[in-house]
């Protein structure tokens, strides 16, 4: 099994909104996003709905074509691949697990069918080895006894078991990257940890590179080595999970953390309630996209778009106040002086 890095550079996806007759607006779903997925690490991509995190997941497995940017993998640019054969070869290396384990399996087919199909299509093992391999894969994801599970239909399985089948199917083609889009959010609370623990095992034993897309910060802290925080199509903070969630730099990361229910917290921080705002990703003007909700905003924030700046070793944030660039520092001096 290869263990290649996947490098995303300047990935951008714009969607058109509105209809053909009236003025169109552009939704900057993903704007100039860069990160690297390394073998044996889990990278969490967190943010609220509409922040663009699922769009990134879909771009990575080439369900969408990017507007611009590169996906560098195994020496080539997967974002530029157009020939079906090249796309398929890339997809066999970068697999996806979806949120809904009820919708992603065919109700009329057995578990065996779902796991054996990619083995046959991609010719991973000789025909006479398929059945044995299906059993191995089911055991890997903790579905035992595999002989019994293989004969079952999706409706005979619990949500957690179905999600395990989806993972076994993704593993069948021996990928080096797994993109998991909210894999536990539809599962019962008591079985979520089982799936997260399975991800940790796969990361360690198979050296897989994971992109874990989630809105659940606590689960990100539990599994991820690195975290990317998205807001309105942009990465606003990135770095080692423990540091980012322990001492967040970006005001949005702070807001997210304060909003999560946390029984161990002695006092509940009051958060400022905003009156309904439109999405900051639609035709964004120059300036910080978080400015309307930001408690720290200063004049420059609504004039100049902040860059993702290295603020401390290994940590980057997109904020004029907490991670100022040298240019904005000057700007701030002018502002304070006048």
């Amino acid at each position, binding site marked *: 099994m290869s263990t290649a890095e996947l490098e995303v550079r300047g990935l951008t996806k714009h969607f058109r909104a509105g209809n053909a007759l009236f003025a169109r607006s552009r939704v900057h779903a993903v704007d100039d996003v860069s990160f690297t997925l390394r073998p044996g690490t889990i990278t969490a991509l967190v943010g*609220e*709905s509409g922040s663009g995190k699922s769009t990134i997941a879909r771009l990575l497995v080439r369900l969408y074509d990017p507007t611009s940017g590169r996906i560098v993998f195994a020496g080539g640019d997967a974002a530029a691949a157009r020939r079906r054969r090249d796309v398929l070869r890339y997809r066999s290396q970068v697999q996806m697990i979806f949120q809904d384990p009820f919708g992603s399996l065919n109700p009329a087919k057995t578990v065996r069918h779902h796991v054996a199909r990619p083995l046959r299509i991609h010719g991973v093992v000789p025909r006479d080895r398929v059945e044995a391999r299906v059993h191995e894969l089911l055991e890997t994801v903790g579905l035992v006894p595999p002989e019994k599970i293989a004969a079952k239909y999706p409706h005979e399985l*619990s949500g*957690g*078991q179905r999600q395990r089948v989806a993972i076994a199917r993704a593993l069948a083609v021996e990928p080096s990257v797994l993109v998991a889009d909210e894999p536990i959010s539809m599962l*019962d*609370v*008591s*079985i*979520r*940890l*089982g799936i*997260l*623990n399975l991800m940790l095992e796969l990361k360690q034993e198979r050296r897989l590179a994971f992109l874990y897309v989630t*809105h659940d*910060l*606590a*689960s990100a*802290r*539990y599994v991820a080595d690195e975290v990317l925080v998205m807001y309105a199509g942009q990465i606003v903070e990135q770095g080692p999970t*423990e540091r980012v*969630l322990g001492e967040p730099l970006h005001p949005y990361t702070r*807001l*997210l*953390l*304060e*909003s*999560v*229910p*946390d*029984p*161990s*917290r002695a006092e*509940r921080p*009051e*958060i400022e*309630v*905003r*009156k*309904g705002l439109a999405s900051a990703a639609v035709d964004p003007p120059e300036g910080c996209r978080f400015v309307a909700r930001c408690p720290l905003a200063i004049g420059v924030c609504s004039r100049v778009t902040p860059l993702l700046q290295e603020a401390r070793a290994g940590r980057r944030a997109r904020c004029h106040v907490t991670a100022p660039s040298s240019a904005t520092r000057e700007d701030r001096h002018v502002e304070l002086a006048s």
Partner: protein
Amino acid sequence: MIATALVPEERVQREPEPLLEARGLTVEYATREQPVRAVDGVDLAIRPGEVLGLAGESGCGKSTVANALMQVLRPPARVSGGSILFRGEDLTGRSREELRRFRWRNVSMVFQSAMNALNPVMRVGDQFVDMMRAHERVSKQHALRRAAELLDVVGIDKRRVRAYPHELSGGMRQRVIIAMALALNPELVIMDEPTTALDVVVQREILQQVRELQRDLGFAVLFITHDLCLLVEFAHRIAIMYAGEIVEEAPAAEIHRDPRHPYTIGLMQSFPPLHGPIVRMTGIPGAPPDLAAPPRGCRFHPRCPRCTPDDAPLYARQTTERPVLREVSPGHRVACHLVEAGRR
């Protein structure tokens, strides 16, 4: 000594007459085979002005309890046993008209997907007017004024009374529903996963507002969710449901500090923490049972880490005898053979 003597009196003061009470509530779903008991002998009391949390996994019967309390169960579900008392009067067997007047005015309800229940071709304000005039003799102008006031209270611009639902975000539509649920000053609002479909920041904003309103206006809340962490912060008291039964009930802080039922303990340990060391956690093994054939004895026993044949007499009780809720300390009730036997 003096302190122990005072406890009963204190409790009388702390526990006023319940507003809404379920006694031995049992709900069955008719199927082609045996009826399935989704709710089996639930006792639950909501006192005026309190926030009672009801937590459990999907299929445990928590939403069915809510629907039964509101008397909105539809076939094949029906209340097959027990009673539902509102201020001491039984609601079961009331006429449709009596129940219609009772809903919204005395008890209102907010569902998880309530934001999709708004009529898409009617302005938000007009939907308030319709609802209010179905229950009270008020003028249209008065109802619209009240609608604008309520929108302001839940953090939406007053001018949005003229908006159509599609012009509002999901979080705003859910706020509209909450505002509507408060329009007739009900004594109790039942909220069934009201913020589950929403983002965590929006969820926090809405809950903060509901709590403020609840303090100011004094209504009680029955809050139903799978998110026990959220309840520990939001509720005064928490009841934990498993496979159609209540297995533990205690003040919220106590559920967090000292959960006693192995299911509650497992549930509390299913949420990775946001602070402190990261340790490997296991959740709860297995899956909730099929209610068409629930396990004999304690319904949790097949998943219970504390149910092993090592202790033969205890094991026999766990696997054959249904545990009942017993008080372990004032206001803290647990249905568990292990706890009853005094084991920790």
